[in-house]
């Protein structure tokens, strides 16, 4: 059984075909980097896996079953947060409010809830964030907290939507290493979207490039080359490797990050 299987999946939003006849499979425990320019459909793909966005064609299977909202086997870190976190809520309190937060009733945390949260915080090395106010945390600390939140309750699949945004290179690397460790220790499959493949090199098992409604998946060597990316984006793409970095360049503009309105759109 695959962690995720797409079989001829098409997703249309408004009049835009975000995915068109995409087929792919991701094995349990696999750490997959999801790349593609703004609007390529990274978030949409995750929302479809979560059962939030319906497919217009084809079939998705998540851990052997059709997607359904509220699947407890999936841990999720969304890309955007519309509402700022209020002052005076601690990290632990935030995670407790989310743990089984979908149930009706009064939010009284049980001893087992507290254990589950403390365990997740310890696992990502965020035990010291438990008592601090979330509003005061730095971007990197906050991201670590959100990843802890995603692993509460031992999910089998993690969907992390751009967890590297607005982090410095050292912090980016730390988050990638953290997720790689989680993926190994817990045997959890991970979809990790990013704008740049470099921070992920050496850590991910596979890379999934999205563009023009199409997808290309494979190891970094299999996918990040002139031939595959040129075919995917239908425009001449050059991949240059130097010093263990890759630079993806196209006439039509950079495909990996460096998008001028990138910064604006993801500023917190």
């Amino acid at each position, binding site marked *: 059984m695959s962690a995720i299987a797409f079989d001829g999946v098409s997703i249309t939003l408004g009049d835009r075909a975000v995915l068109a006849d995409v087929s792919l499979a991701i094995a349990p425990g696999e750490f997959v980097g999801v790349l593609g320019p703004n609007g390529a459909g990274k978030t949409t793909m995750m929302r479809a896996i979560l059962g939030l966005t319906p497919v217009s064609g084809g079939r998705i299977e998540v851990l052997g079953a059709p997607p359904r909202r509220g699947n407890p086997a999936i841990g999720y870190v969304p890309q955007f947060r519309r509402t700022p976190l209020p002052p005076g809520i601690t990290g632990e309190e*935030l995670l*407790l409010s*989310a743990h089984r*937060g979908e*149930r009706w009733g009064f939010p009284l945390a049980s001893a087992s809830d507290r254990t589950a949260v403390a365990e997740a915080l310890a696992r990502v090395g965020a035990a010291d964030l438990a008592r601090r106010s979330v509003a005061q945390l730095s971007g990197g600390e906050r991201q670590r907290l959100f990843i802890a939140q995603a692993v509460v309750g031992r999910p089998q699949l993690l969907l992390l939507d751009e967890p590297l945004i607005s982090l410095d290179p050292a912090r980016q690397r730390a988050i990638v290493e953290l997720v790689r460790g989680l993926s190994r220790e817990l045997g959890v499959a991970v979809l990790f979207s990013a704008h740049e493949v470099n921070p992920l090199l050496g850590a991910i098992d596979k890379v999934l490039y999205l563009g023009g409604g199409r997808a290309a998946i494979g190891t970094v060597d299999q996918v990040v080359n002139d031939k595959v990316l040129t075919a995917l984006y239908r425009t001449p793409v050059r991949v240059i490797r130097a010093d263990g970095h890759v630079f993806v360049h196209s006439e039509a503009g950079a495909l990996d990050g460096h998008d001028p309105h990138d910064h604006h759109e993801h500023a917190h």
Partner: protein
Amino acid sequence: MDIFAYEFMRNAFAASTIVAVVAGAIGYFLVLRGETFAGHALSHVGFAGATGAVLLGLSPFVGLTAFTLLAGLGISVVGQRANRDVAIGIVLTLSLGLGLLFLHFYTAYAGMATSLLFGNVLGIGQQTVWLLLGMAAVTLAGLALISRPLLFASLQPELAEARGVPLRRLSALFMLIVALATAQAIQIVGVLLVFALMVAPAAAALRLTRRFLSGFLLAIGLAVGIAWLSLLLAYVTDWPTSFWITGLGGLAYALSHLRRL
């Protein structure tokens, strides 16, 4: 003290305790969700409802409750927050205007306007106390039922949605509960000053605590404390109770800023 020798004082204390518990509890979530303006507006709609009901020969309390409930539904239907504030503001002023028109047609009740607008806690009868108790029970039971997903959805809506929390339905349910709470609070502090009892204690409590439960309980405690102290001060000074509630509410909020977050 012989303050409890008078029946109207006993009723006033009972009614304001009931209403303060409700206002503190609901207010906590209202502040957490950034929906205080909606709460403010709901009470103004109550004004039109109450005056309209009197014009039709009905009890103002019935009209007030019916109108706030309707407006609560209306506000939750108007989805997006950006346009929402404008829509809410327009409904708010329209309601006050309508209330004024109804009063114009029914001049006999000149005193009613003041007590509707600013509250008249010392005029509350035994029957109203029982009515408030019943409504409070319903309101708090409703809140207890939805408060877990409500807390989750207020803090992290995107994640709550993914976990299967029905955001829109939840928000509509909460608005109905706010409407019920508002109808009760109007009895004590009047249409214009509901904010003081519902928002000020909760906002102070949120600044002073770091956990849900302690913040929630402190909001209730502060609201009740403010209500009691205000009645006491009103008794001693003979100034209006509602004035003291607004003053102490503002003071509590100001003092909460002394604590660094």
